[in-house]
């Protein structure tokens, strides 16, 4: 809280919006960025999510000023940045391998941006102490970088990136070098820090779970294009294409048959209706494994559920849940994640067993299918 108040005193603004228009960058004949446009709101936590080579890092580096796009515009607030060299952009950045200065102490690392900005020594000390306090490293100011653990280095990099109160913060897979437990802890800490600082944050990751945990909005990037932009819930619950459906969370995708009218069927059950006069004729059904529930075969069910029947071909116990692969037709299998505790109430599932699964029609996701 303390930080936020001080930040606002600087000049009334803690964060700037970023407006990117038609940004294109090619390497040879390959589009790293293909006419990307995106508006990042002031104070927002936006995640660029995509597989490696999708262009997400290229986009971040273009925002930071480390690569020069072929065309397009990058505006911070109202100021065009496309030709601005990196040291004049005034954005904080956390690099993938932290990029700390190995010849400086923790204090000197964090003080570096203040020293460059010729902040008076007294103020400098105060602000570094404050930043180190925020990342809980107050006792480590005099340590050398090689005396720190991965998590501590991460925090130093973070403190260094926000100590000069930038109004935009960029992070390039900052947690990828940490082990799972520490990563999850840092995700929550980063989220809290973002709330505390209120700074516009652009975060790059290939970890969909991390993106879902931390973001206000997620931009899913593939082949140099933004394929879907939305809140984590929108992205997860309503993927707009097969790439997003496949990349975010686990999912099974099965083709649907088009009825005479506007109805879509799977094994003669009506699954969904599409708008009339839709030109697209081919559709698929996306099913999240946890939305399927095992039911006893004879049980009556309401019209609101779709029933799949099949043979269990694989069972994986994963602690609180278990995953069953169920073959529902010649060519297609569905994954079902079920609660191991709840499953105890009915007979244990086993490989080779026939099983019925229900899917709430509210959970139906349909996406257009190519060819």
């Amino acid at each position, binding site marked *: 809280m303390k930080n936020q108040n001080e930040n606002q005193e600087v000049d009334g603004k803690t964060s700037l919006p970023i407006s990117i228009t038609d940004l294109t960058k090619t390497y040879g004949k390959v589009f790293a960025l293909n006419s990307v446009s995106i508006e990042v709101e002031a104070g927002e936590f936006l995640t660029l999510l995509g597989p490696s080579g999708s262009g997400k890092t290229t986009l971040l580096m273009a925002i930071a000023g*480390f690569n020069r796009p072929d065309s397009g515009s990058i505006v911070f607030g109202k100021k065009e940045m496309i030709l601005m*060299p990196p*040291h004049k*952009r005034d954005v904080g950045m956390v690099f993938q391998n932290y*990029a700390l200065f190995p010849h400086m102490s923790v204090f000197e690392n964090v003080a570096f941006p203040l020293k460059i900005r010729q902040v008076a020594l007294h103020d400098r000390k105060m602000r570094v102490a404050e930043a180190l306090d925020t990342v809980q490293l107050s006792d480590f100011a005099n340590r050398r970088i090689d005396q720190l653990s991965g998590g501590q280095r991460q925090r130093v990099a973070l403190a*260094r990136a926000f100590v000069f109160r930038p109004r935009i913060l960029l992070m390039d897979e900052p947690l990828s070098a940490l082990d799972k437990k520490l990563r999850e802890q840092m995700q929550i800490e980063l989220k809290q820090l973002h709330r505390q600082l209120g700074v516009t944050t652009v975060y790059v990751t290939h970890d969909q779970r991390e993106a879902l945990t931390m973001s206000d909005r997620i931009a899913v990037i593939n082949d140099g294009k933004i394929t879907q932009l939305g809140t984590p819930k929108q992205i997860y619950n309503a993927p707009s294409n097969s790439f997003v459906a496949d990349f975010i969370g686990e999912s099974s995708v099965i083709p649907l048959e088009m009825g005479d009218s506007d109805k879509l069927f799977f094994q003669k059950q009506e699954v969904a209706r599409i708008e009339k006069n839709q030109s697209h004729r081919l559709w698929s059904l996306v099913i999240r494994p946890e939305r399927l529930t095992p039911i006893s075969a004879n049980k009556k069910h309401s019209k609101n559920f779709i029933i799949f029947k099949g043979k269990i071909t694989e069972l994986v116990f994963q602690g609180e849940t278990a995953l069953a692969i169920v073959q529902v037709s010649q060519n297609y299998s569905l994954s079902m994640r079920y609660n191991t505790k709840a499953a105890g109430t009915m007979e244990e599932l086993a490989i080779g067993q026939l099983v019925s699964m229900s899917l709430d029609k509210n959970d139906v996701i349909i996406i257009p299918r190519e060819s």
Partner: protein
Amino acid sequence: MTKNVQSQSANLNSDLLYVARRREQLTLIGLTSPALICIFLVIFIPVGWLFSLSFLSTDGSLSLENYQKMIEYKSYARVFQATFKVSFFTTILCILIGYPLAYFLSQLPKKYVGLFLLTVLLPFWTSLLVRTYAWLVLLQRKGLINNFAIEVGLWDAPIKFAHNLNGTLIGMVHIMLPFMVLPLYAAMQRIDRQTIHAAANLGANPFQSFWNVFVPLSLSGVVAGSLIVFVLCLGFYVTPAVLGGGKVILVSMQITAILEDQFNWGAASALGVVLLVATLAILILASRLLRLESVMFGRH
């Protein structure tokens, strides 16, 4: 229960494992001994012999005569002074010329580095003597450089490049440069480019990020290169002898002179011992410095 298991596993196969470990150690000693014997024969025995010679006077009796002379005669002090001065200036010039060159190499795209490194290493493949005499041809009074400059009108009278300190330094710097560039390049190569990006991101302009980040991180290379060049210069003979033209007398040349003129092995050995001790002292000092630096910069 667990204690039982532990004590059991402590004894299981322990004899066999001990024998295997011993055998491995013996094999290692066996394999390294030829090299160790070679080093002993080629280095320690001659150096030891020199050392003992230095304590013999001309009539063959044991004395400190040779060392006393070195303190008494001013000429010895001048020779040592000249040796350290020439070595020092050569090292400084090598840093001044080598640093930008190594920086250029470190910034090149990977595929061109090999080509440019080759140009740095090429002189290594020609004889030292040939290179030295080539400089003499270029630098002497009526050499290529003076003739050309006078022809073009850069200067009127020939400038004395050869047979003095100028020539000695030019020749030595040329020959020593690769020994400076290679460690410098290696150190610069190790610098993570992300740290330079980080400096820029934090607001440092190109000069500031170079000065505050790149230079400190390349210092280990400067120290290593300087050390190699300085120590090699201390005992350098051919180039200063040819290009110095007798005006610049270094320890190595003094040793030759004593041997040729007086055939005094004792005095020559004493000079060699003093030079060796001075070199060792510098090496020890520098290794302290290096360790200090590795502590400061977190490099191992």
